[in-house]
């Protein structure tokens, strides 16, 4: 059985699955229930001077039958008194000493305010502090949240203030709503951060009611941009985690956040360098119980693959994240259609014909045989047909071997290496894709 125990910047937890700061970590009752169901840690709903929320707070992007493929919220930080939150954090920590309990904090940008808040927090026995520099809605209008996290100097400054008094690890939560997240990550490192967590939510409007022209979620006819999250944001989060993890000047651990709902998502984040995983939307959809399959699925997969500890997989994909200019131009692919599996929907033809390289030929349906075939001299190996094909392993991309050594654009532009010959018919074979008469 794989060992899922985690030590993240000195914070220990029985597994890497933490609840992200948000509605599921608002109260003692929720966090205690989550720990009972198997969660390894929890980052408390952000504490600060209590706010007043609007009622309508969440919006959803549904994709076909799938609800909450994307999700957004305009809820602010905790609306409960600071002392009440701190008292409950202390109680959770007392009753669950082996679990990671992290306090998420957000106060106005004053040194004394941060000092006071950090000291009060440490008295609870919390294992760490997460600085919410990412919340993109509401709080940012008041000079907090992403208003801090979008300016490297502010980020560095506040981390320094916090580190002046903090004796427990300090995690800085980064906003994705910036041009280059690595600048903010480096500023946090410069300020003395012990770890980073990313991503916070992305600025968004989830939709507009076309009967009333109200943006969603509507509050008495109006809305405000909210933080976008859920499965839809995972690719963005994976990229940003890899960008920060791959930055040589960022050597501190990273807690991965953004669209994690299954153990596969988690494994991908770990492979790109995440030390722990934080989950919120999936729990808001399906409850704390999802942690059982997060743990079971991850450990079964690790057992099958012979990975004993999380360290065995952490960052394994990172060396494979490269610059485009370093990719091999001589790696040639060709689409292959398994005609026995083809169900004759012709989606591949449609996509290739109109959206790509006109490299699929249609054959008459009344022949009873195949209805599509690859025009090999026109196929650029782009993957589009394989991606749109609704049948598993029906269209596969196969490498076309050649005798040429790998050559990247960088090398080629510098006059080094040779390009393997390519078909002369790219973009010129349109005629061939018409049905044969």
């Amino acid at each position: 059985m794989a060992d899922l125990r985690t030590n993240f910047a000195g914070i220990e937890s029985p597994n890497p699955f933490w609840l992200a700061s948000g509605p599921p970590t608002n109260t003692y009752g929720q966090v205690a229930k989550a720990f009972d169901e198997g969660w390894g840690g929890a980052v408390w709903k952000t504490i600060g001077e209590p706010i007043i929320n609007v009622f309508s707070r969440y919006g959803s992007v549904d994709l076909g039958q799938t609800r909450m493929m994307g999700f957004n919220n305009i809820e602010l930080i905790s609306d409960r008194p600071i002392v009440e939150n701190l008292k409950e954090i202390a109680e959770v920590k007392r009753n669950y000493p082996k679990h990671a309990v992290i306090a998420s904090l957000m106060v106005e940008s004053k040194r004394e305010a941060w000092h006071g808040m950090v000291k009060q927090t440490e008295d609870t026995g919390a294992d760490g502090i997460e600085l919410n520099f990412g919340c993109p809605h509401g709080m940012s209008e008041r000079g907090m949240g992403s208003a801090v996290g979008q300016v490297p100097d502010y980020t560095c400054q506040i981390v320094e203030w916090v580190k002046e008094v903090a004796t427990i690890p300090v995690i800085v939560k980064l906003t994705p709503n910036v041009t280059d997240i690595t600048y903010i990550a480096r500023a946090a490192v410069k300020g003395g951060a012990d770890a980073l967590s990313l991503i916070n939510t992305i600025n968004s409007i989830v939709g507009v009611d076309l009967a009333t022209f109200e943006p969603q979620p509507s509050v008495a006819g109006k809305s405000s941009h909210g933080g976008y999250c859920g499965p839809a944001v995972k690719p963005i989060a994976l990229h940003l985690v890899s960008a920060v993890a791959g930055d040589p000047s960022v050597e501190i651990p990273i807690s991965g956040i953004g669209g994690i709902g299954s153990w596969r998502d988690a494994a991908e984040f770990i492979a790109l360098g995440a030390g722990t995983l934080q989950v919120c939307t999936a729990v808001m959809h399906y409850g704390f119980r999802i942690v059982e399959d997060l743990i079971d699925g991850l450990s079964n997969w690790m057992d099958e693959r012979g990975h004993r500890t999380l360290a065995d997989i952490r960052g394994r994909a990172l060396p494979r994240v490269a610059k485009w200019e370093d990719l091999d131009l001589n790696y040639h692919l060709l689409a292959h259609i398994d005609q026995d599996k083809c169900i004759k929907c012709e989606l591949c033809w449609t996509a290739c014909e109109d959206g790509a390289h006109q490299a699929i030929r249609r054959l008459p349906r009344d022949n009873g045989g195949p209805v599509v075939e690859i025009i090999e001299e026109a196929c650029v190996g782009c993957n589009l047909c394989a991606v749109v094909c609704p049948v598993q392993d029906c269209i596969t991309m196969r490498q076309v071997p050649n005798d040429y050594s790998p050559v990247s654009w960088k090398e080629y532009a510098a006059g080094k290496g040779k390009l393997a010959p390519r078909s002369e018919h790219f973009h010129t074979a349109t005629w061939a894709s018409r049905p044969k008469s």
Partner: protein
Amino acid sequence: MPLSEEQLAKNFADIAPALTNDAALLEATKCLYCHDAPCTIACPTHIDVPAFIKKIATGNLRGSARVILDPNPFGHSCARACPVEVLCEGACVLNDRDEQPIKIALLQRHATDYVLERKLKLFEAGKRTGKRVAIVGAGPAGLACARDLRRCGHEVTVFEAKPQPGGLNTYGIAEYKLKSDVALAEVQDILDLGVELKTGVTVGKDVPFDRLLADFHAVFVGVGLGSTKALGIPGEDLPGVVDALTFIEHLKTHPYRETTVGRHVVVIGAGNTAIDAVTQAKRLGAAAATIVYRRGEADMPCYHYEYELAKRDGCGFRFNAAPQRIIANGSGAVAGIEVRTSSGNETIPCDMVIVAIGQGERGLVVPRNDPRVFTGGDCANGGAEIVNATAEGVAAAKRIHERLTNG
């Protein structure tokens, strides 16, 4: 004309073929993942259905199978033979949204096939306790009980009268639902936990029941029901009159062409076994196979979807027709059956009669008041589904374990 091998194989192929990976994934993602799910409540073994489906959706098939097999050692055969229309799938909340329910049985098969085909071992025997339990009958009840007792570390010896274990899973489920080799593979997985199996041994005949009480700390009795009840009408001893269980067992233990079927077959009775008999007679090549039932359509004890299946198979139904006698021709073979109807007596011509009017009890006398004796399965519940027998075997294992541990 006898059917070709190819046609017979087609007729007895799985009525609900396995899902492809694609189809399983698509189906799994349709599950709403209900809390306190009606499907789980409806299952006598209370498999956490949404949890195992969720695991299929995440690609954790091993974990999925474990969720199924932990509470239900016969999760594999249940996936093929359970009356899901009246259990989990009938309870699916999607029915209330006027949609097809989630294909729970096929998803369950998808996950359990995965581990069975790969011979993955999901469970292990517990630490040796030194306690010995005898199990009488290697059907689902007995073996479910055996598996859980092994997981608790008790020594288990199973006594089975038949040459093969599995009970009706091996010998009695319609061939197009569950084949014997699959049933036996599932049984083997349980035996591999270290269960001692003695086949060809009839307790009460070869071994006295008292012997078991003397040699073991507890005894579980799951002997199932006895042979088909007698009709009590003239002509039932004629050659060409066979009871449904014998007919089905022969079909399941021989190459298809070796099972004799008439040209015009009458099946007496309208329970689920009668349906299994009439459909399989038809699939073996009978020109006509007809259910003859003394009461009306609405009174049939079989499940509605089984009735529908028989109709789709082209089987006939004669309701309100009470069998009076089976008629022989000059050479002593079955020539017809005389039935009483509201408009008088009538003879239905046929050359084979299959009797499916329910099973009688076994003759084994069991000291039920002895606290060391436990029962379950058909012999205790009067005859129900695999899933009921399994649930009772599992529950009995729990009680036996408690007794052996605490008392």
